[in-house]
Structure formats: C-alpha cells, structure tokens
C-alpha cells in the first residue's frame, strides 16, 4: 500500500534541525524546539506504528518513480518498531540534554546535529534501497562525528580519531559490497535484489559480497574482531551523546545485518558458523572487558559489546524462535542501554566523577533516585519479570534445540558477568560510603527543582518503557512474533514493493 506519511518521522527531525539552525546560538529556543520536535516525532512514530500494525506493510516511491527503478521507502513491522524505539530514546535524550549538557556545547550546535542524527537513524530504518541505506549511514556517521568531537577536549578528539577511521572504513566496505552487488544483479532495490540474487550463476561471488556487507555492518555494530573502536571512544563524549550512541548507533548495524541477511542473502552454513563464532567471541571478550573496568561508562561500553553478541547469535541460528529472541533483545537493549548512559550522566551530576573508586553513598542520600536506577539495572541483568529476561528464554530455547552448546555456555557466561559487574557497580557506587580522601563535588543539589526534574524524568520515562516491555511481555511477544514471520517469509515485503509477482 502506498502511503506518503512514511517519511513523517524523517521530516520532523529535518524541520526541527533547520529551525534550530535558524535560532543559532539561542540555546533556550533550541531546547524548546528540540523537546517539542522529539515529542512530535514520537507521536508521528506511534501513528505510523499503529498504521503498519493494523494495515500491513506500507511503501512509498520517491518522486513516484516505480520500484525497482526509483528509491523506495518501506515501512514493515521491524522498521516501524525501531523507528518507534528511536523516537522514544530520542525524546528522553532530548529532555536530558536540555539540562545535562554545558552551555558551550549547545552554542556550537549540539541540538541541530542531534536531530540530524535522529533523522539519519529513522531514514536508515525506513529505506528499501541498498544505496539509500548507505547514504543514511553516512548521514548518521557525519552527525555522530560532530557530536563526538563537540567540546574539543583532548580525550574526546583522540577517541574521535579511532571512531572516525573505523567508521569510514566500514562505509568503504559497505560501498564495495554495493558495487559488486550492482555489478552482478543490476539493481539496488532490496526487494528486487532478493529475487535477482537467486538467479545469479556464480553463487560464490554472492558469498564474497555477503562477507563485504558482514564486515561493514560488523564494524558498525561492534562484533568481535572489529569492536575495538567502541570501548576506546564511547566513554569520551558527554553522557547525553553517549546515550544516543550506545543505545542506537550499534543497533543500526544489527538492523542492517538482519535486513540484508533476511532479505537479500540466504545464510549458508559457512556464514552461519562465522556469525556464531563471532557472537560467542563478542560475548566473551565484552564480558572480560567489563570485568576489569572501574570507570562506569567504560564498563557500560564493554557491556554493549557483550550484549551485541546475544543478538548476533540469534541471527546466526536464523529460525523463527531465534529471531524472536534477537528482536526482543534489540527492543530491550535500545531502551536500557540509552538509559544506562543517562544514568551515568546523573551519577556524574551527583558526585562529579565516574570512577567507581571515587564514588559512593548515593543510596543513603538519594534513596528514591537509587531505586529508580536499580529497576533499570535489574532489567539489564535480566531479572524476571523485567524486559531483559524474556529474550533470553527464546535464545536459550533455540540454542538447545539446535545443540549450539558453546553459544549456551557463552550466553550463561555473558549473563553471569553482567550480573556480577552490575552488582559490583551497585555496591561500589550506591552502598559503599564515599572514600575519605575524595572530595565530593555535588552539582545536583544546587540546581533548581525544574532542572532536577528534567534530569531524572528521562531516566523515569525509559524505566517505565522497560517496565512496560517486561510486564506486558505478551503483547510485545505477539508483535515480535509477527516481525519474525515477516523476516522468515519475505514474500509480503517483496509484493508490497514490487506488486504481485506472477
């Protein structure tokens, strides 16, 4: 079905970014536009989501060029779910950054770039054209470069060099893959590719192309041999930026892997084993990294890597139940990881530090905030009935059915280490008294009430979403069930884009 409203979540962020560019250096106006724009974006995303949930896949041909000749935008259930989550996370981060960021950064255009980033994310989720996906990826990385370097501290710039080099390299791999793919099939439309790729004579060439895509997206989503840029750069920018990055950027890579390997390439045994090996090593190396870090944000960065492995493992098994696990985890992970970095920002406001050796005593002073944070931490660890628990059931079940015992072991190690580091963090940051020789610099206490609320509210919003996903798991599982149906059987997607095939 053709529907022009698909692009609304993209345009709303474009317009708010442009409006903010007009209000250059007027930070108060920019803050209002940012929060308002994100809220409108959230409303539009909800509207699009309900539309697609009720009516099935929607498409839009750009400039009315018939698919497969023009660029086509497709809103299937996976896309709209991710757009919805991006909008929720973007709304929360937008509220948080209206007060949790120093004014200097706002003066140099934090808000417009933040909205360009959200625009890029929504575009990447909604596009149905592989080259257009590349362009959205570039929109995302160029905005993220600016966000990462904004402020210009030494550590930030050093992290940005690593981040920039690896991401440009990933784009080059991706572009090379697209070039070969166009050479062997003569089309760029993803639905059309899924038909044409089966007719290619030389299937080895298809396998090689798949590896190019895997490396490109692998760098972006931070899987095992390619993740080193992530822990060495994600702890440098301000927490609001790190929250967007940690929650959303690596997940675009996961989305692209799911999309490309469900629609275009068929997973053969070699790729499946490769993905499974990557998943296992990602979980273990991420977990080991998290064990030794004392800076909270570095610890969270390694946890991101560790949990990416869970999703890659689900993709590697590629059955309905495994995909349900992966997508459920993706939904949970976006919300919780964004929240984790916001929490790191709140802790920094409370204590002026992020080093566990210098923190302590937060529970005693702020029991209510601590309990709110505890809820999120429990969910990250996966205590039932919170949202981290449900996806693991599906992953374990399918890993046992397919006798992937090494993956089962890795899952157990990953979950256990997550629990251990979070417990360690809780006792160090919240329970322990402040070490005697450390001077506490509390920036939170002197703030006016409204700014305090603006700092805690986004954590609360995301915690409620987590709680909703956890307690209302039945509805979410029904949604995920539909999504994985669409991923296994791509016929409806292809028909929605190209019309009925004979």
């Amino acid at each position, binding site marked *: 079905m053709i529907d022009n409203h698909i692009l609304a979540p993209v345009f709303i962020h474009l317009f708010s970014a442009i409006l903010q560019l007009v209000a250059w250096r007027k930070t108060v106006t920019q803050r209002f536009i940012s929060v308002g724009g994100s809220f409108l974006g959230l409303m539009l995303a909800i509207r699009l989501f309900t539309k697609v949930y009720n009516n099935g896949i929607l498409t839009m041909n750009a400039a009315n060029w018939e698919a497969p000749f023009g660029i086509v935008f497709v809103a299937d259930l996976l896309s709209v779910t991710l757009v919805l989550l991006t909008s929720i996370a973007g709304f929360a981060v937008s509220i948080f950054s209206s007060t949790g960021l120093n004014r200097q950064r706002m003066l140099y255009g934090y808000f417009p770039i933040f909205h360009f980033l959200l625009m890029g994310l929504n575009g990447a989720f909604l596009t149905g054209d592989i*080259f257009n996906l590349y*362009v959205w990826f*570039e929109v995302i*990385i*160029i905005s993220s*470069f*600016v966000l990462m*370097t904004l402020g*210009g*501290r*030494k*550590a930030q*710039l*050093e992290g*940005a*060099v*690593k981040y*920039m*080099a690896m991401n*440009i*390299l990933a*784009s*080059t791999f991706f*572009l*090379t893959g*697209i*070039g*070969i793919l*166009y*050479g*062997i099939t*003569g089309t*760029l439309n993803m639905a059309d590719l899924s038909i044409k790729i089966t007719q290619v004579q030389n299937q080895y060439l298809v396998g090689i192309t798949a590896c190019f895509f895997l490396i490109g997206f692998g760098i972006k989503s931070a899987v095992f041999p390619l993740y080193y840029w992530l822990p060495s750069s994600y702890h*440098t920018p*301000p*927490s609001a930026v790190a929250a967007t990055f940690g929650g959303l950027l690596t997940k675009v890579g996961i989305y692209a892997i799911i999309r490309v390997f469900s629609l275009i390439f068929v997973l053969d045994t070699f790729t499946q084993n490769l993905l499974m090996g990557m998943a296992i090593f990602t979980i273990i190396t991420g977990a080991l990294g998290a064990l030794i870090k004392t*800076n909270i944000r570095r610890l969270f960065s390694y946890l991101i890597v560790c949990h990416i492995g869970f999703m890659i493992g689900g993709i590697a098994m590629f059955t309905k139940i495994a995909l349900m696990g992966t997508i459920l985890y993706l939904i949970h992970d976006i919300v919780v990881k964004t929240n984790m970095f916001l929490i790191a920002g709140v802790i*920094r406001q409370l204590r*002026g*530090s*992020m*080093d566990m050796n210098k923190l302590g005593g937060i529970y005693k002073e702020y029991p209510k905030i601590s309990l709110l944070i505890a809820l999120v931490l429990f969910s990250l660890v996966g205590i039932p009935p919170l949202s981290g628990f449900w996806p693991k059931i599906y992953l374990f079940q399918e890993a046992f059915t397919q006798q992937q015992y090494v993956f089962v072991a890795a899952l157990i190690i990953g979950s256990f280490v997550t629990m251990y580091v979070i417990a360690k963090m809780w006792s160090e940051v919240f329970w322990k008294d402040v070490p005697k020789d450390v001077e506490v610099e509390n920036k939170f206490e002197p703030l006016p009430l409204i700014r305090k609320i603006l700092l805690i509210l986004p954590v609360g919003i995301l915690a409620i979403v987590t709680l909703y996903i956890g307690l209302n798991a039945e509805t979410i599982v029904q949604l995920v069930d539909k999504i994985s149906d669409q991923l296994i059987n791509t016929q409806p997607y292809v028909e929605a884009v190209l019309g009925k095939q004979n």
Partner: protein
Amino acid sequence: MELLLIVLLGLLYAAGVYMILRRSMVKLLLGIMLLGSGTNILIFLLGGITKGKPPVIDENAKLFQDVFADPIPQSLILTAIVISFGLTAFAIVLLKRVYALVNSDDLDDLNTPEEEDI
C-alpha cells in the same frame, strides 16, 4: 580499457590498505582516501563500460535499440564522491586539531589516560 581500470583498482586498494596499516595519522587519512577512490572505480567498472553510447533515446524511436551506457553507476559514484569529500574535509580538520593537542603524528600516542572533565 577494462584491464587498465582493473590494474588501477588493484593498485589503489593495495596502496590504501598499506597506508592504513602505517602508524601515522596523515597516512591513515591518505589510505582511507585511496580506498574510497578505489571503491568508486570498482563501481564504475562493475556497472559495465560502454564507450560513446549515452543513454539518450533517439527522437524517432520509442525504445532503446542499442547497447547504451548505464547511468546509475555514475550517479552512485557522484554521490559517493560528494559524501567522501565531506568526510575527508572533516577528517583533515579533526586530525589537525588532534595534532595541535597531542603534538605527535603517531597513532600510538592517542592514549591519554582518563580525564575527569566531562
């Protein structure tokens, strides 16, 4: 023509990979740029090269009656060039700033320990 481009492509990729593996920041940037150019030529090559046949339809004909050059790879390359231009410009400025702060061109020197001012 194809053979020439293939050789050029191989050279660009090889030089790019070699430069990326060096320790200097500037060489890293040059390597990324060379790889990008290599990719553009790859797209051009794989799109199929047709000499002197622009995809313009004859006034009297309703359909293409001949082999013609595919315009899509060229538009893809154009987009990729514009994007990589922007990225390279940003990267040059970033590297210049880093050089001013760290006072070294060596990638191994980019490991300042944790700063607390965030």
